[in-house]
């Protein structure tokens, strides 16, 4: 891969759409070419700056939502429609409000830590002491209150638990599990709960998508490089099984 290829493919690299082998060749070029390395770094910094500034906006959508609901043809009786509309409006306002605020507020540190950890240890494959094999992983997993079977069951069909280690995320000890389907890898971090029950919430740091949740028993994060919807789906699956 030469400098021109890297320049052409940069949008795919930054959006996380590059697959394993191409991504490795891309990263290998960056490691040996300071000019391209600096270029990517500057583009990533620009993205971060733009996202940080432009996503702070919290436009009020109340008027639009009210107008659209009034215009939507209703098949129910007026009484039922009003009752249901009021409930739906409050639910939607709550969902939209919390989603919007979450998307626009800075993500908590544990999200950023997990994204950085995944980038270094999984994407860039920096040398680490990993545990692999059922017995070795089990010995780590039990420290976090999980059996090997529970840990390996957090991924969808087609993926298997390949390796594990203990990480420090936001000052907390978390179990880092890496799942693979043979070509792609993603991470799940599992740690002690924070005494709250919290649904899946998304954040993004450069190419890394991060989905965090708290089941009331465990706090967990899923980190992928790819579309946000895929990361969210993997997090919902893990949340159901934890």
């Amino acid at each position, binding site marked *: 891969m030469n400098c021109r290829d890297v320049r052409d493919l940069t949008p795919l690299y930054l959006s996380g759409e590059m697959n394993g082998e191409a991504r490795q060749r891309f990263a290998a070029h960056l490691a040996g070419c300071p000019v391209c390395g600096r270029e990517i770094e500057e583009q990533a910094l620009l993205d971060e700056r733009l996202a940080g500034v*432009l*996503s702070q906006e919290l436009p009020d959508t109340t008027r*639009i939502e009210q107008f659209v609901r009034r215009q939507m043809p209703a098949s129910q009786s007026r009484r039922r429609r009003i009752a249901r509309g009021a409930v739906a409006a409050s639910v939607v306002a709550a969902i939209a409000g919390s989603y919007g605020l979450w998307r626009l507020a800075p993500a908590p540190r544990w999200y950023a830590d997990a994204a950085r950890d995944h980038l270094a240890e999984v994407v860039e494959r920096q040398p680490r002491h990993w545990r692999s094999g059922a017995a070795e992983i089990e010995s780590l997993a039990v420290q976090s209150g999980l059996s090997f079977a529970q840990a390996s069951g957090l991924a969808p069909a087609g993926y298997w638990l390949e390796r594990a280690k203990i990480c420090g995320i936001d000052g907390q000890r978390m179990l880092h599990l890496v799942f693979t389907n043979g070509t792609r890898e993603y991470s799940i971090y599992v740690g002690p709960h924070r005494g709250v029950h919290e649904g899946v919430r998304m954040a993004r740091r450069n190419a890394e998508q991060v989905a965090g949740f708290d089941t009331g028993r465990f706090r967990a994060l899923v980190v992928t490089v790819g579309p946000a919807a895929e990361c969210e789906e993997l997090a919902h699956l893990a949340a159901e099984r934890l």
Partner: protein
Amino acid sequence: MKRSEGEFERVAMPHTRSLLRFALRLTHNASSAEDLVQETLLLAWRGFRQFETGSNARAWLFRILINAFHAQNRKARSSLPALVLTPEIRAVSDSSLELLEVEQALDRLGTDQRTVLLLAVVEGFTCREIADILTVPMGTVMSRLSRAREAMRELLSPRSGRHGEKVVR
């Protein structure tokens, strides 16, 4: 099959805020942006029967919004141009110089470049999703995105100054 209002509320309405944020950047005008989002949601509701459950609702809504925006532009071509918020007007209501600087730079991009940049960087869509939303080849998205990033870096860099007159198309 008739799809319920409740399902539409769940699938489409939570995206209203990001649609509006994007529309504000496209139209430069709060009331045009609200109109555009209202029209988008009503078009989406009318076409909700065709929406495939489980597919990407956000990308679907953004595609409708962009098509509606282009349709409105075609209609309004002979009328007066939309009011563009000037730095002076914004400076009174918005104390963020950083936001102002980024907005000024963004406004100097052509609509095509601004659109892909906002979809990728602010709304978090992948190049494949943007290609589907805009119905253009993926290569076109990638080259527009590269040119938009390059232009923004040039416009935002201290060398070109905050009030440079360069227009990027």
